[in-house]
């Protein structure tokens, strides 16, 4: 809390005291190193865990003695984050440098070999690249569809009209449905024998219509289902921006006889730009992870395999744990680059404006 006054004299490294966190780190690292090198993995795992707990305890006692109550208050959250999130993340990063399969007992250090394999191996890399390209296609089309539809819906619902409240609930329903329910619904919707889509088109054209029989059709089907589910999310965000625009700005603009188009770009858009960016960011990250709808609608057939579904198969079905970890980290890297690119562009725009 009041750090500058409390930490007048940090304890010297050599003093043995429960709050000497520097010593705790030193001891922890040394003991862990010895344990990892000397003891079997099942034992050293627990020793390293105990050392991590020791260091954490030293930090906590140190914070208590020096009255960093703020730090103490967030400590449980950080501990949970570490155990549930950061530790598994680092663990899998570690695994990606080993040859390891979860259903076999052996483990061997291979350095970058997994990364080289998933990106260049003749046997496996082709499937990875195809899945990545498909993922890119889905990211572009689903996000574009959701942004446009969501934005238009928001413009519609920003106005007052009869039954608006009920229609709004109706429009929001897809977002609240479970993906599995929507997936099953769309499976039947697109089904050539039982589905209404084929029924209507067959009746109109007299030709047998099977949407999911081509890649174009299958991608369209998945994009439509995804847009149906997630456009309301974009709408909600944009709507929040739209209702926050002060009315008097429009009144002033009306007095100045500013055209509707110009009103939109100079008054409305600056208010919703941040939220649009946020929606774009969320939806891009989500679209990058698209697997559920693909599994439900095509099982990856008709060349609609996405990298996420591919990863599920490699890591969870084929038990190629370390190869899966390598793909995960490549995906993570791509998402981080992509989001930073967005944020950079967004910041440059807002600074320029």
């Amino acid at each position: 809390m009041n750090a500058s006054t409390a930490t007048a004299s940090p304890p010297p490294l050599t003093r043995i005291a429960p709050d000497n966190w520097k010593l705790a780190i030193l001891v922890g690292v040394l003991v862990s190193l010895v344990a990892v090198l000397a003891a079997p993995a099942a034992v050293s795992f627990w020793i390293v865990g105990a050392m991590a707990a020791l260091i954490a305890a030293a930090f906590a006692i140190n914070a208590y003695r020096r009255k960093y109550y703020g730090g103490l208050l967030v400590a449980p959250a950080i501990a949970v984050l570490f155990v549930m999130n950061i530790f598994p993340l680092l663990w899998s990063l570690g695994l990606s440098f080993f040859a390891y399969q979860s259903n076999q007992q052996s483990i061997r250090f291979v350095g970058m070999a997994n990364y080289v394999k998933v990106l260049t191996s003749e046997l496996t890399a082709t499937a990875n690249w195809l899945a990545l390209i498909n993922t890119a296609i889905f990211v572009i089309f689903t996000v574009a569809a959701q942004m446009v539809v969501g934005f238009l819906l928001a413009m519609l619902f920003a106005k007052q009209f009869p039954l608006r409240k009920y229609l709004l609930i109706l429009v929001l329903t897809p977002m609240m449905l479970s993906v599995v329910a929507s997936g099953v619904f769309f499976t039947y919707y697109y089904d050539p024998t039982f589905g209404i889509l084929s029924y209507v088109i067959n009746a109109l054209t007299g030709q047998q219509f099977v949407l999911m029989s081509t890649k174009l059709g299958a991608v369209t089907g998945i994009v439509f289902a995804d847009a149906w589910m997630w456009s309301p999310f974009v709408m909600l965000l944009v709507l929040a921006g739209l209702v926050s625009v002060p009315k008097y700005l429009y009144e002033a603009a009306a007095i100045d006889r500013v055209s509707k188009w110009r009103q939109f770009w100079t008054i409305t858009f600056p208010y919703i730009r941040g939220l649009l960016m946020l929606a774009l960011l969320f939806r891009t990250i989500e679209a990058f992870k698209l697997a559920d709808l693909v599994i439900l609608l095509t099982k990856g057939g008709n060349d609609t395999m996405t990298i996420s579904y591919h990863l599920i198969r490699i890591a969870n079905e084929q038990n190629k744990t370390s190869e899966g970890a390598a793909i995960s980290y490549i995906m993570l890297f791509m998402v981080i680059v992509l989001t930073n690119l967005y944020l950079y562009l967004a910041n440059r725009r807002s600074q320029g404006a």
Partner: protein
Amino acid sequence: MTVMTKMKGFAAAAGLAATLLTGAASYAVADEVTLTMAVPDWPPTRIMKKFFDEQYKPKSGNTVKLDVDFIPWPDFYTRVNASLTSGEQKYNFIVSDSQWLGAFVEGGYYRKINDLLDADPEFKKTLMNIHPNPLNAYSTYPYKSENYYGFPQFPDVLVNFARKDIICHEEEQKNFQAKYGKKLPCTGEELDAMTWDDFKNVGEFFRRKKGEMLAGAPAEDDFYGIAFQAGKGYDFSSMQINGFIWQMGGNIWDETQAPTGQAEGVVNSPEAVAALEKYLSMLEYMPPVAKTGTMDIFKSDELFREGKVAMNIDWIGLGEASLDPKSSKVSDKLVFGQMPGTMGPDGKMVRWSNIGGQPFVLTTWTTDAQIKEAVEFVKWWLSDDIQHQFAAGGGQSAVKSVYEDPKYVTYRPWNRAWAPQLDWQKDVWHVPQFFELLTQQQDQFDLAITGKQDAKTTLDNIAKFQQEVLKSGGLIQ
């Protein structure tokens, strides 16, 4: 990513906890033994649990409980795989698809039972009373070796589900005879005698648009002659295609020939290519969903029960629903036959088919006290009396004395096609790489089914992949 990493992170902790728990359970009370079992949630396993609760009296005098975890089919593999690889050691018994044997034996999860068989001649006799084809498929790793692992839970084969009201209709019979110069099969025996060419004719013959005459009345909806599995998921095309390949003289990579047997040249042999071409040539006579790569065993069954097709090749395991008027529009119009075959050069029918069904296996961490009770339970399960009851309740039995009993064919209408087909069952690979081989093969078959590549390219790609994977796994020299 997170599921996987968390799983590994907590593997050790969960393992320790499980050891403590099971340890405590087996030592604290000597006369109460709990057997924990992972099973797919469907009638054959529900019946087993019901029989156990109602009828099972352990000879040892102990109180034996069967704690069954019913897991929905679509999640079944994922859940079992996660449980085993995480090291939680939760289950003593696991219902396992036969293809999983290698992967989980090599992982050290499935217990070899040869010592138990040697120690108990009665147990051995029970197991050897099973037809050798299902026994090899469900119990051996490597396939057809003398290493035994499993016991049949629900044995299964592919049969022909057909609509009597359509195929036996006088008008249709007459027209079919006129068009193909052959009688349209109507009875079970006539269905048994069908070749794939006859099957294809049925498909071509019964393709009707809505409003066209079908069996004396205008069709209410588009109607199709035939259906079989052609889906991308799990093994929903391989199980059918393998039968075609074997029947027409081709082969899949044969693990009993390892390490000298090859994939390249075998998997993509001219016979295999011709077989796949034959399989693909029938898709155009099937409901249009076949073109999307989503016509799995459940879809073709649904189309059949909704009355959209005249004949469907599917597992017996899905048959109960078609007999039930609540779930089937055709429940009172059914006739069953063996899966079509291929006429061999000697004029005899060749009927090779891929076996279905599942064994259940013991896990390596099961304690001695549990194993003792488990063996008694398996002996009880495979006893004639219980197997008869199981078959009468909708199950199947691979025990010779049971299915050879004249009563057996009276239990269900498809049972007449059961025993003769057992001699023609083979299994797909049991090797640890099975899932890798299967997913790649299913992906390739899907490309062929949806018309993106021809049979030759498909099998060339599969052969090349299998050759490399199996070579790096040391199974091909």
